[in-house]
């Protein structure tokens, strides 16, 4: 037993050491098998497919099959396949400021040209940006800094169009929305959905729930069940877990819903009317180009709305056409055109009620 007692702490420590090593490998994954272990994978690597390719790192807050992260991941992969970037990806990065900041810092340290912090992470990104003035960063937020650019969030424009359809589809005159957190992206999306619905159906009432959690699918599903029990028959989600919860809830109760960010039609072909698609591809492409040209700094907010292909409402061809009144659909298409040619602007309400 004495030997066992001596051995025990050593064995425990070595187990923990193994765990830490495995974890640091797990923090990063994705198709490229790249690691986020910082200096060790440092600036010396010259695996570039072309000399001009921008070394881009993508930090995702979720797995790459999550509706939100899937779009960022695929856009970056597309850019990579075009030879525009050398790509390194971290999926399921810690969502908290300190944790995210660490991953972003490791990429900045290891000699990336452009680090994309693909979440609302200004608090995590800006301090790193100050420390690495030569590296370009991009994230979501309110105000760009010298080298931290921003993605704008035009999802609300698509949500307005979705709302117009929802106003026509609803039979109960109750629609609803479920969002992870009350962040500007979701708030504006929910507001625009309601405004759009009221345009085609002034009697519509919208129930909106902010869950306070981006991960909890079960609770999102229960919240949406609750909304449906209150009569809601068209649901919009904002957030990956919320979208996944919505899919289950609308299938179970056979009501309609709109997908979030990446096309979710195939998950519930009978229930998904369409998806408000957010496509970061034009953003990433422009950011990479600006990095090559040296015009990235001073950083700005990159903006690609409905007109520029950053967002669109993609209808699900399998959704029963009989459910959407033709008049409403025509009107929606008219408004879509008006947004594109600039004669109509969807009100952007990132906080409060906007009135």
């Amino acid at each position: 037993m004495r030997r066992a007692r001596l051995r025990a702490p050593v064995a425990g420590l070595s187990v923990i050491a193994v765990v830490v090593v495995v974890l640091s490998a797990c923090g990063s994954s994705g198709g490229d098998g790249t690691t986020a272990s910082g200096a060790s994978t440092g600036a010396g690597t010259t695996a570039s497919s072309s000399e001009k390719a921008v070394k881009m790192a993508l930090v995702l807050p979720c797995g790459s099959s999550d509706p939100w992260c899937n779009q960022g991941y695929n856009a970056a992969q597309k850019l990579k396949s075009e030879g525009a970037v050398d790509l390194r990806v971290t999926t399921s990065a810690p969502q908290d400021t300190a944790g995210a900041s660490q991953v972003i810092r490791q990429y900045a340290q290891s000699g990336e040209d452009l680090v994309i912090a693909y979440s609302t992470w200004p608090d995590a990104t800006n301090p790193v940006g100050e420390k690495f003035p030569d590296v370009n960063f991009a994230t979501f937020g309110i105000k760009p800094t010298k080298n931290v650019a921003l993605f704008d969030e035009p999802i609300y424009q698509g949500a307005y169009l979705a709302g117009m359809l929802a106003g026509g589809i609803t039979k109960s005159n109750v629609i609803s929305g479920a969002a992870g957190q009350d962040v500007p992206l979701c708030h504006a999306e929910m507001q625009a959905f309601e405004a759009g619905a009221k345009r085609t159906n002034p009697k519509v009432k919208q129930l909106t729930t902010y869950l306070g959690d981006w991960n909890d699918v079960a609770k999102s599903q229960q919240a949406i069940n609750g909304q449906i029990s209150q009569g809601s028959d068209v649901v919009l989600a904002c957030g990956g877990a919320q979208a996944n919860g919505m899919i289950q809830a609308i299938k179970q109760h056979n009501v309609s819903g709109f997908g979030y960010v990446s096309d979710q039609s195939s998950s519930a072909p009978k229930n998904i009317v369409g998806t408000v698609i957010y496509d970061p591809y034009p953003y990433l492409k422009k950011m990479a180009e600006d990095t090559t040209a040296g015009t990235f700094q001073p950083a700005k907010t990159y903006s690609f709305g409905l007109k520029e292909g950053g967002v669109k409402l993609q209808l699900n061809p399998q959704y029963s056409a009989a459910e959407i009144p033709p008049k409403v659909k025509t009107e929606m298409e008219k408004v879509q055109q008006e947004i594109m040619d600039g004669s109509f602007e969807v009100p952007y309400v990132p906080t409060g009620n906007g009135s």
Partner: protein
Amino acid sequence: MDWSAIFGGSGLTVLFSSAILLAMPTALAALGETVAERAGVLNLGLEGMMLSGAMGAFLGAYYTDSPVVGALCGVTVGVLVGALMAFLSVTLKTEQVINGIAIVLFAQGITAFLFEKLFGGSEQPTIPDIPDLKIPLLGDIPGVGKVLFDQNALLYASGVIAVGVWLLLMRTRFGLSIRAVGESPQAADAAAVNVSRIRWRALLICGGMAGLGGTVLVIGNLNLFQPNVTAGRGWVAIALVIFGRWNPLLVFGGTFLFGFTDALQVQVRAVSGGTSTDVPYELFQALPYLITLAVLVIATVFARRSAQPSALGIPFRKEASR
């Protein structure tokens, strides 16, 4: 705000069904934790066991298209992680708190990693739904029937297993050994109880229950997996064990109180929700924790003695070996 929408007949049915779905995974894990802690092992790895179980269940059901196989996989994976905890904490006698936290971090990393490797870049994979099983006659009772007797088969099984664990811990010789080992391992050892073996088994049961909790979450409720799908339920379960004063019935009841409050706050916000959030939703979100904390404080103040197993968290070493 229309309160009858929540507490009216159909509102209540929704509320209780929702509470059961939200509470069951946590309740199962909490029962498992009760067994482990009554045996004297503070298992902080519960969240990791649930998450691993959830992933095992998902993969099993995904690749075989059979929820039954999925459920078995979920429980098995939970038991395996329980065995890891037992090996570290009982066989190697290393610090239990650190083992537990390491297991959670490990599970979060490995499940996210595997999921990414298997499904990365593709659309959200899902598993087939299992239909609700309505029990004849009982399921027709107004109100209660819909809530209790018109759920999916896995929830019934969970209920039966929960009762089984209670019986096992409080009414059998093996349960007595578990409790003895947690209170006074020296005395139990003197009475020829093999302390290590009992603690090993308690941790295997704990792992299995946590795995079952993860399984119930994934199969028959969500039908999908995503990294961190358990969303902290394991930690809540550990707190609820303390709340329930290590008594399986109180723990089980406490979990449903928590689940009910959680469902209630979700429901209140669903019903009242305009797009504006006049009352901060963070406040509602804190409600289940506040109520549980209040009950915990009251229970502790009124309790005549501490219910915590005396040997909780202390590795057992035979005196004779010195």
